[in-house]
């Protein structure tokens, strides 16, 4: 009996252990190594079968359009868009008969929308040929050439927010300053008779709409349904006096979030206009791309999530610790290879409680378990440690045969020896701008000498707003941080920083200096935070500047000020090497599940195809991509103007680069040989104490001791 009971016991234990391990393996199989934290998004669509979804399509870019105006579906399904140039002039009306895939110029009178100077914030052309323009207090509209111009005026204490015209209806949103509320009004265009709906659901919704970027509105082709962007996209039927939500807030947020599945590709600054077709299964919107500073067009089609992707067995997992511009490459790669499921994961989005350390730990667990992603974006990850541990695959054979194509010196500097494991897809270069004396300085000591000789001439050596960028860059290229941080050198650095700050600030400025301009904040944003010193120099706010060459737009500014002030630029602290900051560094996980797709993706990233579709900040590693009509012309024509951040009235003209100037820049990049050691933990600690020295009068020696006490423990690990 005893034996039987014991046998049973052993059987149950064995069965329990087996079931546990089975559960574990099933879980791993289903979820893959997607990880429990962070977010997947961008490229893949792996929702539940049959789930209703709005599928995103990015539409053709309108290169001639700097600003987009009204967007509208006509009754025959034609999509109509009005656009303007950079100066808010030269309005054009474009039609698309394939839902925004292609555009043709429409035969439209735009006289009203072009002659109103800057008085009107919105100048539009409606579907039926009615032109309208509005300011905060006045709206004018005209039904065609030589027809009577009608006007409506906002009441006292009220402002027009938005307007839309369709068929015989004019809809406006009006903001009441006293009650801080937005409401919708409708006008019959024949009689100009006003109607204010009192639908309680609409009124409630309008309260929230004011909080969302101005509460954009759109009318359907018959002018009987109003769509309002607010807490989602609201839908108000004028005839039935009925309010409902076309898209709820959560879904809308997902569609707008570049990190979400099916979300927009670009980082959206602002929704500028939208249109809904009459069957309400298509929404087209123009959004403001904050990176390339131009409008983007997207269409969302209501439908069912595509089933075939679920059946797909080939997956490519791309992992980035923080949001990265490789996401664009992932999205475009997915579009190019629809049979492959591309999953883009962000370990730490900042939108939940997952910290960077948590995210790295989870990733390491996956890597240890052989369930890691195929592609690793190594920014913020211990790339060198991964290489030493044999996690990264040797990709020399991918890049070396075409080494002339790349800034290979930059790639080499990110790797030891002749074997390539890490490929920086972008980089930027810390530089100092100044006269010949300033550029003579090969190190910080020499720079400090020159700074002293140049003080007392009435113009500060650096502008106070440039201090944080200068502090961060001077530290990054200083060589203070080797195996550990050198306390003595750090103390000298703090002392120099105090000297620089003493010459930067005018009386009393230091006490009221904004926290956002201080070094701690700058370090938190490093290396994303940027400051362009060119305009400070141009407008005599500084004699020199410390910044970064990061794209041709920014280089145009550098050249403009150099020509005007007879200055030049040079690598910062070049005695220690010609430094660059590597961005979006790609490595392939040797233990990845899909090595072929990973290699293919890397080759795609290096092909320059992404840059043709999406302009990104920083210098791309492929040499040929540097250029383009937007920035380079034979004679260096006028390219636009730029205003100073702190004094917007001060404007500097920009000119395109000549081929010779571009060649000079390429040669400059070819001289780069040292990657900046950008350790976020160290940078943060160093800059906290830098603020303590500069703004709280802390002794540099004790500040350096405090930093070294903390960071050397970390660096010794």
């Amino acid at each position, binding site marked *: 009996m005893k034996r039987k009971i014991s046998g049973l016991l052993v059987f149950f234990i064995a069965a329990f252990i087996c079931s546990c391990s089975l559960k574990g393996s099933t879980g791993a199989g289903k979820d893959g190594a997607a990880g429990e934290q962070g977010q997947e998004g961008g490229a893949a669509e792996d929702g539940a079968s049959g789930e209703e979804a709005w599928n995103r399509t990015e539409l053709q870019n309108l290169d001639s359009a700097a600003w987009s105006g009204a967007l509208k579906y006509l009754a025959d399904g034609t999509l109509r868009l009005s656009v303007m140039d950079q100066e808010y002039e030269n309005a054009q009306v474009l039609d698309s008969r394939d839902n925004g895939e292609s555009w043709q110029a429409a035969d439209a009178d735009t006289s009203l929308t072009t002659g109103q100077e800057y008085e009107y914030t919105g100048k539009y052309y409606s579907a039926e040929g009615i032109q309208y323009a509005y300011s905060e207090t006045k709206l004018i509209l005209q039904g065609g050439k030589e027809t009577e111009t009608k006007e409506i005026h906002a009441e006292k204490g009220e402002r027009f927010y938005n307007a839309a015209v369709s068929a015989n209806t004019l809809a406006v949103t009006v903001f009441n300053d006293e009650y801080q509320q937005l409401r919708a009004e409708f006008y019959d265009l024949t009689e100009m008779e006003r109607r204010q709906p009192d639908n309680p659901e609409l009124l409630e919704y309008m309260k929230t709409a004011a909080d969302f970027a101005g509460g954009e509105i759109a009318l359907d082709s018959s002018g009987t349904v109003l769509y309002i962007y607010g807490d989602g996209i609201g839908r108000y039927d004028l005839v039935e006096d009925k309010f409902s939500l076309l898209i709820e807030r959560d879904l809308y947020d997902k569609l707008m979030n570049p990190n979400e599945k099916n979300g927009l590709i670009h980082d959206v600054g602002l929704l500028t206009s939208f249109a809904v077709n009459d069957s309400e299964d298509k929404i087209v919107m123009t959004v403001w791309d904050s990176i390339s500073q131009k409008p983007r067009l997207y269409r969302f089609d209501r439908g069912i999530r595509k089933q075939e992707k679920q059946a797909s067995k080939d997956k490519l997992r791309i992992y980035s610790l923080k949001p990265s511009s490789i996401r664009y490459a992932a999205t475009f790669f997915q579009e190019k290879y629809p049979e492959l499921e591309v999953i883009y994961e962000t370990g730490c989005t900042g939108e939940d409680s997952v910290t960077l350390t948590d995210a790295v730990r989870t990733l390491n667990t996956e890597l240890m378990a052989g369930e890691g992603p195929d592609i690793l974006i190594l920014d913020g990850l211990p790339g060198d440690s991964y290489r030493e541990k044999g996690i990264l695959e040797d990709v020399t054979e991918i890049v070396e045969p075409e080494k002339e194509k790349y800034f290979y010196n930059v790639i080499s500097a990110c790797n030891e020896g002749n074997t390539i494991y890490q490929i920086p897809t972008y980089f930027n270069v810390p530089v100092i701008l100044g006269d010949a004396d300033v550029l003579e300085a090969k190190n910080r000591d020499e720079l400090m000498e020159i700074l002293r000789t140049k003080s007392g001439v009435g113009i500060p050596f650096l502008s106070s707003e440039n201090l944080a960028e200068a502090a961060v860059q001077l530290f990054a290229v200083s060589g203070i941080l080797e195996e550990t941080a050198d306390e003595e050198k750090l103390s000298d650095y703090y002392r120099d920083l105090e000297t620089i700050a003493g010459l930067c600030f005018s009386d009393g400025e230091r006490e009221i200096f904004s926290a956002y301009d201080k070094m701690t904040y700058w370090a938190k944003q490093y290396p994303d935070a940027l400051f362009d010193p060119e305009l400070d120099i141009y407008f005599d706010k500084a004699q020199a500047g410390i910044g970064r060459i990061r794209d041709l737009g920014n280089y145009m500014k550098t050249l403009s000020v150099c020509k005007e002030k007879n200055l030049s630029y040079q690598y910062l602290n070049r005695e220690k090497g010609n430094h660059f900051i590597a961005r979006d560094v790609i490595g392939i996980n040797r233990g990845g599940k899909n090595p072929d797709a990973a290699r293919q993706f890397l080759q795609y990233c290096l092909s320059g195809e992404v840059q043709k579709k999406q302009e990104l900040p920083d210098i791309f590693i492929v040499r040929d991509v540097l250029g383009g009509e937007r920035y380079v012309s034979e004679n260096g024509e006028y390219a636009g103007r730029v205003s100073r951040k702190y004094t917007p009235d001060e404007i500097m003209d920009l000119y395109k680069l000549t081929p010779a100037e571009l060649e000079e820049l390429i040669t400059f990049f070819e001289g780069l040989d040292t990657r900046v050691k950008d350790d976020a933990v160290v940078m943060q600690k160093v800059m906290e104490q830098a603020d303590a020295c500069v703004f709280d009068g802390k002794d540099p020696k004790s500040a350096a001791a405090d930093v070294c006490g903390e960071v050397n423990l*970390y660096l010794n*690990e």
Partner: protein
Amino acid sequence: MFVLPSLMGVLVFYAVPYLDVIRRSFVRTLTGEFTGIENFRLVLGNPAFRLAAANTGKMMAVSVPVLVVFSLMLAVPLQKGVPGGRWFKSGLLIPMAIPVASVVLLWQCIFAKQGFLNGFLNLFGIPGTDWMNTKYAFAVLVFSYVWKNLGYSVILWIAALEGIPAEINEAARMDGAGEWVIFFRITIPNLFSALFTITVLSLINSFKVFREAYLVAGDYPDESIYMLQHLFNNWYRNLDVDKMAAGAVLSGTVLLILVCLFWRKWEGEEV
């Protein structure tokens, strides 16, 4: 057969993983390449490991004796029965029932720069300090450890005290022995077996104090409370599994030697 379930549990969850850790300490984990004692050399040459090991040793050397002695001092009167003793005993166990996260919150409220303790000291004109980010952090951690484990140790001591036959004490009293003599000559020698158990448990629990240190001060606390587990935790971030394995083998070996020495000493006393 009856020990088989426990044995299997120990094998599966402790012995086999530990053997794997020992194996890993001699190889490069991700490639499996044999490295000999290279990992140990790296670990022993690492200043962070030396600091963490020293701090962990210091923590054990200070907190375990304090806990053992202090809990015994409380257990003796409680076992004899003092008014309100039962309530007091129950109260001593409360810290064990409080989740670490709540304890940490409590510590932050008390020991933060703007916390209760500094507020209290300010009442008497004594300037406060940042307790968790200065050398006082070690004292705070020792206090935290003793506070958390005191009740458990007291209960163990009381159980051991209950096991001493009352007749022996009676006989000693009859022979004219005072309370101190009884305590040192009769009670203490009879508690040696319990002392072994309590000391070993306290040693093991002293390792767990890392949780509080980590939650209060994060990855990089004040140097004085930078423990081995901080280091292991941070090594994992860099995927330094080889170092972790070697470090774990080293610290496990030291702990084993300590326990064996203590065991031997106890065996000697028993004989």
